[in-house]
């Protein structure tokens, strides 16, 4: 009745191979995407939040076309940051609450690989939709085509940094009461450089400087974050479980 493992080779278990890292990324990515698809309403709420925040600014400030075009990029970036922040508290907390995080930390796959999979899933479900929606929302601010292309490119490189840095904060605030607001306090200052270079791309376009410098700096930031953030977040996860 009970299916018995056939090979009783307890003496030599297969060591985790190099491909273990990719298998770990795939496991976490596939599971988190599936979970996100099962709770589509939650994703919709986040996107709607982004759309509404961006749309409120023209209503609350001025219909003056030039002024809107000036503040548009900044508003899009801040709204993208807030939308990313909205879903961050749940990134590790739900796994922590139901015990999955213990099993993840005890998996033979490298923890940074599993954590990276979760970060990628977070970006695909919150960052990527924001990038795709940005050109449409930019119309409300009368941002011209060239500037909008630069802004979209900057968002494409910059929003993964927000997910990566945010995940460190989410792991550090695991199990703390009021972790959500502490998470915002931790993560928002870290994101300042991303905002400056990201929103600055449009100024660079208008000044005729070209966007290479800003995008390169964002790209460099992304590379550093890709290497460092999974390590930092997994260290924080282990501390939270101890």
């Amino acid at each position, binding site marked *: 009745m009970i299916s018995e493992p056939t090979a009783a080779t307890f003496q030599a278990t297969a060591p985790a191979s190099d491909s273990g890292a990719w298998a770990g990324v795939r496991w976490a990515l596939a599971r988190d995407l599936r979970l996100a698809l099962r709770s589509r309403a939650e994703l919709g709420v986040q996107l709607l939040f982004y759309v509404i925040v961006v749309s409120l600014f023209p209503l609350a400030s001025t219909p003056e076309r030039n002024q809107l075009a000036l503040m548009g990029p900044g508003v899009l970036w801040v709204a993208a940051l807030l939308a990313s922040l909205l879903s961050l508290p749940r990134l590790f907390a739900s796994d922590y609450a*139901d015990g999955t995080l*213990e099993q993840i930390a005890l998996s033979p796959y490298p923890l940074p690989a599993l954590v990276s999979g979760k970060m990628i899933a977070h970006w695909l479900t919150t960052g990527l939709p924001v990038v795709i929606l940005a050109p449409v929302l930019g119309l409300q601010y009368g941002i011209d085509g060239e500037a909008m292309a630069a802004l979209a490119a900057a968002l494409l490189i910059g929003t993964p940094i927000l997910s990566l840095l945010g995940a460190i904060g989410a792991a550090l605030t695991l199990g703390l009461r009021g972790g959500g607001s502490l998470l915002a306090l931790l993560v928002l200052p870290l994101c300042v450089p991303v905002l400056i270079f990201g929103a600055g791309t449009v100024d660079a376009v208008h000044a005729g400087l070209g966007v290479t410098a800003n995008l390169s700096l964002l790209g460099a930031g992304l590379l550093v974050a890709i290497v460092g953030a999974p390590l930092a977040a997994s260290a924080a996860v282990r501390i939270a479980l101890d």
Partner: protein
Amino acid sequence: MLEAIDLAARRGSSHLFSSLSFSVEPGCAMFVTGANGTGKTTLLRILAGLGAPFAGTVRWRGVDVAPFAQTLRDDVAYCGHLPALKDELTAEENLAALVTLTGESVAASKFRDALASVALERQARLPARALSQGQRRRLGLARLSLSRRPLWLLDEPATALDSAGIALLKRLLSGHLERGGCALVATHQPLELPANEVRALSLS
């Protein structure tokens, strides 16, 4: 196979246990008993590598192991208080996720068989939120039945199980011990297994 040497643990400033030494050989189960709050769960978490002891060492296959050591992560199956189930996923998806997370490649049909062996085949496509407490525990048993790991650490595995479920747990455990595995089980109601395979450890 598993040795604990002079283990001590604290919660806050109070001692849970100290100078705790024991060893568990292949084919042996150790039942850890003790009143609430005596540190059964803490002991299991330390042995699983989820936390560092306040003092002492844990030795697995003759090698001292630190928390989250790779050898532990390759060899331990830890079933804690928390079932590690996702309410949004079906019973079968939950089982598949937990088993593949341990790095084992298991044919997809095996998951159905394992669910059938714990009498959950009709719930396979139900989301886990629709399962009762006992059925959640049975899903944990299905996971154990697919595990090939030599060291099982079970925290109150009999909670919420009916008598058929407890019989199932006993069968799984004795099968595991026959294959030369070892197990530590924190429990209030020691299971009846053949006496030569069982040790008892009482925390007080």
